[in-house]
């Protein structure tokens, strides 16, 4: 592999891109200068930190530590979902984290051990990035689905309560809303499968090609990643939406919101 290396000095040149954006912001009074500055500093700091961390993580040989690290990542994903959904009446952090932890850990294990067949299955260089992509993608899908779910429960409260008042249970009263929410969460990843390679080259594949990997090999990895993400998205949204929905109703079949 022959990779052209980037030094910190060269990276400073890329700050020109930010200066360009800042200039536009000043000229059009977008008031984004502060965010651009903070964002740039955070990008440098967070990624530098992760770089050091990864070096440390890749030297780990204890599967439990690697799983613990993955759970830590999933916790922050669940935390971000709660922040984005912003629902005070229904607690979603716990169920979101637990269901993500179980399903995504299992999925990543299957991917590394059965598909990639890396020895051992917990080799951090494979486990952490593959699991991370699952978590990141599913995080977006789950937030979209939950946002949609709570929004439609509020907007279509009358319809939900009509079914409840006729004697229906929570499943019967929210069947349609649940279906719409799960679909909304899944659509972006399914659409991504339709346009991948036509409209854009996925980041991971581009990264591998930049790193000198044979394109055919990079493509196979990308296909694996796409399929794995669609599966994780479907399973993740399905479980989380069901758990959250159940918590929107009391045991007397009343809508809590």
């Amino acid at each position: 592999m022959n990779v052209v290396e980037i030094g910190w000095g060269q990276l400073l040149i890329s700050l020109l891109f930010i200066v360009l954006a800042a200039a536009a912001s000043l000229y059009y009074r977008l008031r984004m200068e502060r965010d651009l500055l903070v964002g740039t500093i955070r990008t440098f700091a967070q990624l530098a930190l992760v770089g050091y961390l990864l070096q440390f993580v890749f030297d780990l040989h204890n599967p439990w530590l690697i799983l613990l690290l993955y759970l830590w990542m999933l916790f922050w994903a669940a935390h971000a979902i709660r922040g984005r959904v912003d629902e005070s009446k229904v607690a979603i952090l716990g169920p979101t984290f637990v269901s993500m932890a179980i399903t995504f850990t299992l999925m990543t294990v299957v991917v590394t051990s059965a598909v990639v067949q890396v020895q051992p299955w917990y080799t951090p260089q494979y486990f952490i990035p593959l699991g991370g992509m699952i978590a990141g993608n599913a995080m977006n899908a789950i937030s979209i689905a939950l946002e949609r779910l709570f929004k439609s429960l509020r907007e279509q409260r009358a319809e939900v309560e009509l079914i409840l008042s006729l004697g229906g249970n929570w499943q019967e009263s929210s069947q349609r809303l649940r279906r719409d929410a799960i679909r909304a969460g899944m659509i972006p990843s399914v659409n991504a499968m339709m346009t991948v390679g036509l409209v854009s080259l996925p980041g991971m594949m581009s990264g591998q090609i930049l790193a000198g990997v044979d394109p055919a090999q990079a493509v196979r990895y990308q296909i694996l990643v796409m399929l794995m993400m669609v599966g994780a998205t479907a399973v993740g949204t399905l479980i989380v939406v069901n758990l959250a929905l159940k918590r929107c109703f009391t045991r007397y079949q009343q809508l809590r919101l």
Partner: protein
Amino acid sequence: MELISCRGLRLERGGVVLLEDTDLVIEAGERILITGPSGCGKSTLLRHLCMLEPGAEQTIFLQGRALAEWVPGELRRAVAYLPQTPVAVEGSVRDYLCLPYTLKVYSGNRPNDKALKAALESLNLEIALDAGAEQLSPGQKARLALVQRLLLKPQVLLCDEPIAALDQDSAALVVRALEQAGRDGMTQVLVSHQPLQGASGRCYRFVDRRLELSPS
């Protein structure tokens, strides 16, 4: 026979106390009319009577059993609730009337078209079963919603402002249908900010977070 009773009922909505330490007994077959200014808690009371609102499951009793002890579906089969604004559901008039029979509690009891037609006619609704339910006028929608609940033959019917949005003719038809159902033994609790002309029954008013029996 005592059908519904509230003992020491206290209702709140958004931190505001609407009703305090209220006792109310409704006999089987009786009609109760409840009036009061808007926002006083009339609708909230009805929603509590069918357990749609959380908080009073232990202080309201149906047939001597606290609402909390009922299976929610069975309770709501016995106590039907008609909200002020009829909910538009996609589909035909037939779909709307048969919506309850798609639920587990009513499964298998779907009435045939003849029964549906007869029910519509009892409220002077001359509409085809295949017509779109959303295209009906507000007065027709309100009557259609009432027909849906009457077909279920509940023991108790809770009506929130049954004639508020209706023209005189529709209102008279609704009151007549309610009278008829009452004669057939259906217990009714009607809530209204205006007097219900032609409807008989025991009258209560919301006064100072209490229910006060009023003479008319």
